[in-house]
């Protein structure tokens, strides 16, 4: 009976029902997209680490962001190679440079130098041009998504980086820096030549471990042998890099605030819709109270209505979210919605809807069944 009353009266008033649903849908979509954009953006901060094929990253003590390394002697690689469980060690060089554009301007870029004959540090996949682009003496790989910034470089086109000639030999897709500057991949030797920093230094040493070894254990061992370095499993260094941007740039706070705002708008809309619905039906509720419906049963009906609006709204909202996500997400502006976000957002909004039923609750509590006789 409660169920019957709850959904019949809800459906009877289509206008208000739709208003309530819009509130919930709006919240769901806003929170999911905000969150998705946030995760999409923040995951770029660790992209180089995630795709590096390395199990352990070794850098200067206190390393905190993959794009801002402080050099360590490249010869440390021989020490690392001697540690038990290490299968392969290769250096990588990451540093800033300036690439020339056809119209005479320059664009800042991040130079990534990787060694040949290994996939350690090779985060890109050539989709256009030469598979072995870096084998060419002055070959570089840039990303398609940076085409506009680099003014549409063609395969084979000559550019200058830091005053030295380079040739675009391959293009990848989706290897984007969290910084605005494009990544430019080249061979390790060339990166050393282009840079003004100590040629004896590498930015990081990348380690592939043997299959059955414990990366944490190896890291501790490396750090005890080389007191000036930090060694972290790749997953952890990815999180450290993300954490850097979250805290230094206040990104967590600003995105969190926007998501909260979405929730708040939803809360207000659902609350005020339910309230308006109840106001419309005060006399019906008074009648029900008069003929013997208890206050608790009445509240139960309100709760059911909230839950119903929430469930339908969340379902529709999720569908819209998925549609928007698939149609709007690009490598440059990535919308990444982890399952946890969907679930968390759904649960949260459901709870908020039940909470929103509290507003009409206050009104229903004051209903005097006596008023049924007084119209």
């Amino acid at each position, binding site marked *: 009976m409660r169920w*019957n009353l709850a959904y019949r009266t809800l459906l009877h008033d289509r206008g208000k029902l739709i208003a309530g649903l819009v509130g919930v849908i709006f919240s769901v979509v806003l929170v999911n997209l905000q969150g998705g954009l946030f995760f999409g953006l923040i995951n770029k901060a660790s992209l180089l680490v995630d795709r590096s094929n390395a199990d352990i990253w070794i850098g200067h003590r206190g390393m905190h962001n993959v794009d801002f390394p402080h050099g360590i002697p490249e010869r440390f690689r021989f020490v690392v190679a001697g540690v038990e469980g290490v299968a392969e060690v290769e250096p990588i060089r990451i540093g800033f440079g300036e690439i020339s554009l056809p119209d005479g301007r320059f664009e800042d870029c991040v130079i990534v130098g990787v060694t040949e004959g290994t996939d350690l540090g090779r985060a890109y996949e050539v989709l256009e041009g030469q598979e072995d682009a870096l084998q060419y003496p002055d070959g570089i790989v840039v990303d398609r998504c940076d085409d506009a910034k680099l003014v549409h470089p063609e395969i084979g086109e000559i550019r200058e980086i830091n005053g030295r000639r380079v040739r675009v030999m391959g293009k990848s897709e989706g290897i984007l820096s969290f910084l605005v500057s494009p990544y430019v991949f080249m061979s390790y030797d060339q990166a050393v030549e282009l840079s003004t920093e100590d040629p004896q230094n590498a930015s990081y040493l990348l380690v592939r471990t043997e299959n059955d070894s414990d990366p944490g254990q190896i890291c501790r061992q490396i750090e005890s042998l080389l007191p000036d370095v930090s060694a972290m499993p790749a997953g952890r260094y990815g999180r450290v890099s993300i954490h850097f941007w979250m805290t230094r740039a206040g990104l967590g706070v600003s995105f969190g605030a926007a998501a909260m705002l979405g929730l708040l708008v939803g809360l207000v809309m659902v609350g005020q819709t339910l309230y308006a619905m109840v106001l419309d039906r005060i006399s019906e509720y008074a009648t029900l109270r008069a003929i013997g419906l208890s206050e608790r049963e009445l509240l139960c009906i309100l709760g059911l209505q909230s839950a119903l609006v929430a469930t339908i709204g969340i379902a529709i909202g999720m569908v819209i979210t998925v549609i928007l996500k698939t149609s709007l997400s690009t490598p440059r502006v990535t919308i990444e919605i982890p399952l946890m976000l969907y679930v968390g957002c759904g649960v949260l909004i459901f709870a908020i809807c039940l909470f929103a039923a509290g507003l009409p609750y206050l009104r229903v509590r004051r209903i005097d069944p006596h008023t049924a006789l007084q119209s």
Partner: protein
Amino acid sequence: MTTTNPNPNTPGPVAIPVTGLGQREHANQLKSSSAPTQPALEAKAIAKSYVIGGQARPVLDGIDFHVDPGECVFLAGPSGSGKTTLLSILGLLLTSDSGQLFLKDRRVDGLNEVERTLVRRQRIGFVFQRFQLINGLTAEDNVAIPLTMDGMPMREARDRAGDLLCRMGLQDHCKALPTSMSPGQCQRVALARAVINEPELILADEPTAALDGKSGKAVMELLHQLTKEFASSTVVVTHDPRIYEYADRICEMENGRFK
């Protein structure tokens, strides 16, 4: 529940195609003993005043009132004389400032809100001037509310509500929403809702005031029939002289007292 009807004075199950409407024991009590019976409802020295503009104004002034089992009492009197207030107190919708109230032998003044709600649900049926149907529910579902509140499954309650509506000449309107029915039909639905639980007491506040003469009479005719059948006691507030013929007794009020 059986449909056997031990009382020859009320129509049997053949005449009433309503299943499951049993008889109450006080029906027999009424007919079998002419000794002083216990009233179905008794109010003693009921007083109530409202504070208006910072001043307490008495609306009911020590009212003594009773209704015998199966009796139909009319409360008449000018507007503002306190009829609705008295009816609200009798129906446990309002608490009196002083006085005692008994439903059969149970004292019901001084109950808390939860207990009063339960008494209303189980023992009292209400008919309102403006029908007070739930607009989102069909006629059938409106009538089924009191049954389902008592825990009857929806399907069974709907069947019984449908049967009762048929009896009231509304067989074509079982699935209709209140907004699509005439006032007379609405009041008949409301009446069905009030009696479906066979309450021992039915309270009606100006049940014909919003109806034209003909539908008013039809509603009163039905009310009369059904209350006789279920042996319910009835209190009707009205100032419609056209329906006085249905009263067993008429009490006239003036300024919070009986004349």
